[in-house]
């Protein structure tokens, strides 16, 4: 059953050098208890989608389309209604764990804050719950960790604290924005394990934003590949890794170490002077005449959707 339904979402930023088309006519849905990975290069619009869902975009952003959460359009609800939805229903974990936590407060006090504000829990009960959460998140001495400041913990530990904060109110959706960025291999392994714990304990749906294909492969049920502000392929993760459909998806998988780091040609296009037609056509080895004229629609193939004329 769909818990989130994004329809024709477009986000444009007005800047002195021109309008930046960050997200263009993007539609996708998230089902209950599902993990959907949004994968793509830096600057392709993944984080903009995440911030649009909880309306945390800067003032120069122009947003159109609809974001239906349990039937309510998040782009239309009042700020006070949205405040209840944020954290209680939809929780977000931002990039850079060390900067996302307040350096002046202990991590424990940051975990209990939402419990006291949203659930009106007593301080003692919220402390007990926080310690329990820290234990679930793999801290061997949760009471000690509770009283520590973010600078006393490693990047991986801070990421687990953020996960604990996100889990405090059992939200329906957790949005994790690049949860493994900048972490070394062993910490990435730890974070993957913690996410599996979240999935098991909370039954939350997760939107996992990442550019790390191995993390997406391990954690997600479905995967959506983004290129230059558009989703170009969406479908079951296992099928995607077995046979990527879109030429860009194929190029992405060929860049993996096991394929010998075969690099795609060229670079991503500017988000201001966007190419006409398919955004990938200047780099595409299979481009046809129509690719540079009109943006392809989504075509169904093997229970997946792909935005490419090859599958027309």
């Amino acid at each position, binding site marked *: 059953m769909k818990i989130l339904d994004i329809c024709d979402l477009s986000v444009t930023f007005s800047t002195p050098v021109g309008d930046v088309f960050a997200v263009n006519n993007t539609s996708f849905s998230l089902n209950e208890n599902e993990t959907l990975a949004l994968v793509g290069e830096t600057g392709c619009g993944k984080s903009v989608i995440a911030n649009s869902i909880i309306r945390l975009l800067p003032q120069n952003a122009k947003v159109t389309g609809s974001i239906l959460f349990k039937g309510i359009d998040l782009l239309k609800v009042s700020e006070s209604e949205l405040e209840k939805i944020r954290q209680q229903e939809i929780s977000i974990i931002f990039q850079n764990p060390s900067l996302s936590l307040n350096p002046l407060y202990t991590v424990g006090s940051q975990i209990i804050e939402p419990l006291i504000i949203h659930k009106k829990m007593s301080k003692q009960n919220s402390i007990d719950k926080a310690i329990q959460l820290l234990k679930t998140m793999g801290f061997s001495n949760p009471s000690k960790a509770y009283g520590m400041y973010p600078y006393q913990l490693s990047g991986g530990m801070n990421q687990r604290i953020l996960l604990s904060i996100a889990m405090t109110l059992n939200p329906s959706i957790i949005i994790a924005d690049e949860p493994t960025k900048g972490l*070394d291999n062993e910490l990435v392994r730890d974070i993957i394990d913690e996410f599996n714990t979240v999935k098991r304990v909370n039954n939350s749906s997760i939107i996992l934003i990442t*550019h790390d294909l191995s993390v997406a492969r391990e954690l997600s049920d479905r995967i959506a590949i983004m290129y230059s502000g558009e989703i170009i392929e969406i479908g079951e993760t296992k099928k995607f890794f077995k046979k990527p459909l879109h030429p860009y998806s194929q190029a992405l998988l*060929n860049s993996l*170490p096991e394929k010998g*780091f075969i690099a795609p040609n060229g*670079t*991503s296009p500017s988000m201001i002077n966007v190419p006409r037609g398919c955004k990938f056509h200047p780099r595409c080895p299979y481009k046809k005449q129509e690719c540079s004229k009109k943006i392809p629609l989504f075509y169904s193939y093997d229970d997946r959707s792909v935005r490419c004329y090859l599958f027309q």
Partner: protein
Amino acid sequence: MLSISVIVDHISKSYGYGIFNKKYECILNDLCLKLDRGKTIGLLGPSGVGKTTLAKIMMGLETPTSGKIFINNIDIWDSKKEERSKALKKIQMLFQDTQGSLNPKKTIAKSLYETAILVGVKISDIDSKILEFLDIVGLSPDILCRYPHQISGGQNQRVALARILLLNPEYIILDEPTSALDIAVQAQIIQLLRNLQIKRNLGYLLISHNIPLIEFMASHIIYLDKGSVVFSGSTNKFREFYLNKEK
């Protein structure tokens, strides 16, 4: 010990901390390695194990507590200033933080121009030289008027590489050169580094957490733990060592 290579000879490094009861922590312990031209050595190990400290010592940016560094037979801590400076120019470093390694207040053109002046390129030849090196790293000239924050991470890394190549190095220390880049851009930079190595006979010391990358690039791998070498051998043998370690 006469050879054309970089030799790390029994290097140790300790840092002191505390004011009254000064204590010393050993970061690197009796480390030896030999980096030849045209070869890649992979340096692996957990965070904080001393990989970047070793790189800084090899670059002459930090003094070792004991041991010696030879660059093409010149002991960089026991030689005349001119000789030392000449030897140190042979070894350059490509950093992880692509944007941070370029001056944010200077355009790409200015950053490259300064380097060209430094290596003694004639003023009349500078423009053509810069364009030549931009072409080598696969960048178009329109990037010259931009600032580091106006270009992508991959482009910044290519500019940093062009700047290093202007100095005509024989050895490059690559400190996590692709960890801040997307997978597709990462592959482009790796292919570029491999091509440059073949064309210019460069010796690489590749520092990374990325085991598949090290296995792809390096012919010899060194694994550091707690400041000491726990594995040093061929890439084939490394897999066996790592699998046993994981158990």
